[in-house]
């Protein structure tokens, strides 16, 4: 337990001394924030509130990027092997990555909310409890995804390629950049299989329409994210390698498939009901409507 704590502290310290971190975790998210709030929402408080969900989701999902890069670099440079001759265990190493990432992501999210409040005069943030639960889950599950990427790739280059392959669908098919409602039908169907889609939509629902933590959609999304996060973390522990030349165990490859299960099921369900899509559409329409942004009274889900 103490090893986990000291490692977490070290990871936070090291990340703060890294210029790459500054770019990916501070400059890029705030860039998105001002792009969305200033340009897409034209600075109108209701619009800013509408876009805050997707912006925060982007901030949170970006976690996997830096985390995978850091771990692969640690392994490539033989830093992990030095830890391997000490009593540090692989779960110490992995858990500290996730917690350090969480601690480093939260301030950015909070500053985004403060900007929305004081720069763009957003007065209500919906159900902040729901929002923070999703933010925490999102940060942890996407960080686990980063750990898996770090385990299956061997070089920094490979990691960056895989990260791009994950990142692009993540931001374009989930509603985080282009609203789900304006995506073509086929693309939307694919998007419904992505964890990102539910994180974006539910976060938007929580902030914009004040979705309560006991609402149906929220519970389903949280359950899927929890199962996914647990599976992904478990998988990353199975795949973890201290040495670049160690092989990935065969049974672990099966687990990669297993982690797809929760969102495969949810994707099938949502593709038949198109519940999430209609909600995203309704939220998008209400931003432009002259009335108040509050959820319609029937929105108890």
């Amino acid at each position, binding site marked *: 337990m*103490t*090893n986990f704590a*000291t490692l977490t502290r*070290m990871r936070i*310290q*090291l990340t703060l*001394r*890294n210029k790459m971190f500054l770019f990916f975790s501070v400059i890029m998210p705030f860039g998105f924030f001002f792009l969305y709030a200033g340009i897409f929402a034209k600075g109108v408080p209701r619009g800013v509130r509408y876009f805050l969900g997707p912006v925060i989701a982007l901030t949170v999902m970006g976690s996997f990027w830096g985390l995978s890069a850091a771990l692969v670099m*640690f392994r490539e*440079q*033989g*830093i992990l*092997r*030095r830890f*391997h*001759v*000490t*009593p*540090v*265990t692989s779960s110490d190493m992995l858990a500290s990555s996730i917690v350090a990432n969480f601690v480093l992501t939260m301030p950015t999210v909070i500053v985004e909310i403060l900007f929305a409040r004081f720069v763009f005069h957003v007065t209500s943030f919906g159900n902040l409890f729901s929002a923070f639960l999703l933010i925490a889950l999102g940060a942890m599950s996407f960080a686990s995804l980063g750990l898996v990427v770090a385990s299956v790739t061997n070089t920094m280059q490979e990691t960056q390629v895989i990260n791009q392959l994950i990142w692009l669908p993540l931001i374009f098919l989930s509603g985080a950049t282009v609203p789900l409602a304006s995506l073509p039908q086929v693309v939307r169907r694919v998007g419904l299989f992505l964890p990102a889609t539910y994180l974006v939509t539910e976060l938007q629902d929580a902030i914009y329409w004040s979705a309560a933590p006991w609402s149906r959609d929220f519970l389903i999304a949280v359950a899927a994210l929890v199962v996914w996060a647990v599976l992904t973390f478990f998988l990353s522990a199975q795949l973890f390698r*201290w*040495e670049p*030349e160690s092989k990935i165990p065969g049974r672990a490859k099966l687990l990669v498939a297993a982690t797809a299960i929760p969102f495969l099921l949810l994707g099938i369900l949502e593709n038949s009901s198109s519940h999430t899509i209609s909600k995203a559409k309704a939220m998008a329409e209400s931003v432009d409507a002259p009335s108040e942004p509050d959820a319609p009274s029937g929105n108890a889900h």
Partner: protein
Amino acid sequence: MANSILQVENLVKRYGDVEAVRGVSFAVEEGEVFGLLGPNGAGKTSTVEVLEGLRTPDGGRVSVCGLDPQRDSAALKHEIGAALQSTSLPDKLRVMEALRLFASFYKRRRNPEELLKRFGLEEKRDTFYNQLSGGQKQRLALAMALVNDPKVLFFDEPTAGLDPQVRREIYDIIEELKREKKTIVMTTHYIEEAERLCDRVAIVDHGKVIALGTPRDLKAHSGGTTRIEVRLSKPESNGTLKSLEGATDAREVGGTYVIHSKRPPQTIVSLVKHLEAQDNELVSLEIASPSLEDVFIEMTGRRLRD
């Protein structure tokens, strides 16, 4: 043997089809500095990494401090300290932070301040790892190996890639540890390192121990010839030199005559007499006692380093 602090019996380690270690056996006693000497790729590092618990053996039995590095890995890690080959620390970790961090992982700890002083790193305490010189990095690696006051130390090629000045600094450090009766297992491909530091040496080649003993014994049991290297003012035939008293072999290598002798004093006297008679003169003379390199050449027909 039964109460040796470290035992290796018939160790085998494979990487795919390549058998890196092919039945290595040795035992290390408490307080001993034991060296694995051999060329790159001989299987030294693989052997040490199995002992450290970093690699799974494919055959044989090893025990360190009475523990099995695989089964009792968690317990063993508290008892050993290691300076690995091809390892590193995060660029932006400071020297003192590294010592403190690694000390925090152990139940038994040494004072990081004291290690810093002892390894001459006091002035570098707040320096980032990537700003240290090669020698400073290596001193830090050795200091870090000691943070848990380990029972057995593993130094894998502790001076590889360092310049001679720095190498001597590292020798001093290891000699000091030796005086403190630390048990050290080290690998090296430098002859002088093994001769100077190790109580006993196992010469390893192609995954096998081909000779084992104190450096002195190993040299005594080899041909035991002394190398006499001379330069002459006029050329001389190899045949004549070979027939000198006590000489076993003589050949010319790039203008220098290399004579191997079992009785160097007699050989030199007879050489001088011969030269006087021929009106030839001795330009230079060097005598080298047999080294572990000669032992290696004799056993494998190759030099340790080409």
